[in-house]
């Protein structure tokens, strides 16, 4: 039969030699390799105490940004949702009323905004699509949770805290 690849290795079926029949030299050889690793650099880190540095292009949990005056940047234009290959983003828009100008940057804003982190593949397309610099992917993981409903991130989970409110506290 013709081999399908050129990487086929024929099995060596010759009878064992005397040295091979002893087994012990082979065991010592194997244990030497094992113990050698004790003195080598560890491949793991003890995670919660020690954290690996993130790459500068790491794409983690999303945030919704505010502008310098603390107003929400998102206008619910839907470009993140249409760019999302996993269809994780949904939103509902509302019109800004007079008196809400300090809350929302534009006359239209996202009344509800939701990312399903179970669906999200952290590709960062939403960040790229956003014309208002509203959505960003941070260097944080989506934290683990015991229940699926903990992965539905609403607007209050995503929106960064208002810088003005922080000052008063």
């Amino acid at each position: 039969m013709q081999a399908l690849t050129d990487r086929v290795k024929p099995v060596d079926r010759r009878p064992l030699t005397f040295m091979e029949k002893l087994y012990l030299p082979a065991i010592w050889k194997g244990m030497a390799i094992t113990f050698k690793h004790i003195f080598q650099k560890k491949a793991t880190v003890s995670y919660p105490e020690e954290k690996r540095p993130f790459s500068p292009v790491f794409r983690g949990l999303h945030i919704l940004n505010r502008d310098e005056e603390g107003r929400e940047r998102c206008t619910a234009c839907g470009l993140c949702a249409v760019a999302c290959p996993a269809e994780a983003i949904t939103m509902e828009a509302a019109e800004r009323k007079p008196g809400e100008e300090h809350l929302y940057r534009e006359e239209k804003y996202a009344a509800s905004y939701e990312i399903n982190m179970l669906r999200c593949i952290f590709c960062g397309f939403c960040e790229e699509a956003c014309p208002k610099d509203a959505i960003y992917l941070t260097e944080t993981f989506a934290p683990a949770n015991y229940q699926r409903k903990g992965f539905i991130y609403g607007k209050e989970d995503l929106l960064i805290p208002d810088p003005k409110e922080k000052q008063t506290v």
Partner: protein
Amino acid sequence: MSEEKKLFKVKIDNISVEVEPGTTILNAARRIGGDIVPPAMCYYSKLEGSGGKCRTCLVKVTKGSDADPRPIPKLVASCRTNVMDGMEVANITSPEVQEARKGVVEFLLLNHPLDCPICDQAGECHLQDLGYEHGADGTRYEFKRRTFEQVDIGDKIKLHMTRCILCYRCVFTADQLTNRREHGVLGRGEAAEIGTYIHKALDNDFIGNVIDVCPVGALTDKTFRFKNRVWFLKPVDAHRNCDKCCGKTVLWMRGDEVFRVTARKDQYGEVEEFICDTCRFETKDAKAWTIEGPRRIDRHSVISQSHYVGTVKPKETITDVMDGRSPRLLMDIHSVSQVNRPEIDLSKIEGPAHSDDFKKQ
């Protein structure tokens, strides 16, 4: 004498077509169809006297006619220039036309605000398409754009004069479709604006058609304002018995909710038949319509994004495999999600939704 009229033979981008005398170059090109049709922002075949304002349909006439083969020295507006026998026209084959069109788009965008993320027309806006296909990447304009206050003309139509490109289509629509003319263009030059005299409400039965006719987002439907983006809605053809109009419309639906009703538009963005305001604004109930099927949308349009046509839903096999037991549902999305709450019928809210619409339980 034979009654048969002599047909004029025209060549547009080296494609020959025979048309009746009196046809414009644009309509001759539309008879051929395809890429060679010049874009038009102001011309509207259903409106008499439209055209000649936006200059996006500029073409080069390389040969005037058989009788006088000299070319026309300047680029001509194809929607306003009639064909001559033996005329030869260059549209996409002429770099001069492409360059001129790029300039025209830059002019149209001079005062046009960059508020597509907010604008309800985004996704079906002719100026967006035009800018994308023919426009330059940036603008050289360094001055303040002209701005106007938003105006409610009538209780169902919103006028954003800032976005207007002064194509006059809506003025012609109001003139020709309704009994009384109530809105027109006030002022001249840069100060020109669409207005109703003393902000008089437009309450004609067919005035809603100005929304469909508007190539940009200057005239928008207030009952649909900010409700949803057009590309998240599913357009379906529907009809109903209407005593005022043909009743043939497109419903923009999400689930069972009808978010918007528009007239059916052809490939040039022109309505097939005008519809009345009762159909457009007041019949937002799916039960009132007979749905014919999904509307065919050009697959290059953003509206066709995430619309899965011809998909086959696989048979649910879990219950078979598990001896008739249904799988344990780990999460019902509606128990967690704040979007699409069943108690809020967005499409039923008169006008745009506000913060208190979402606060009520």
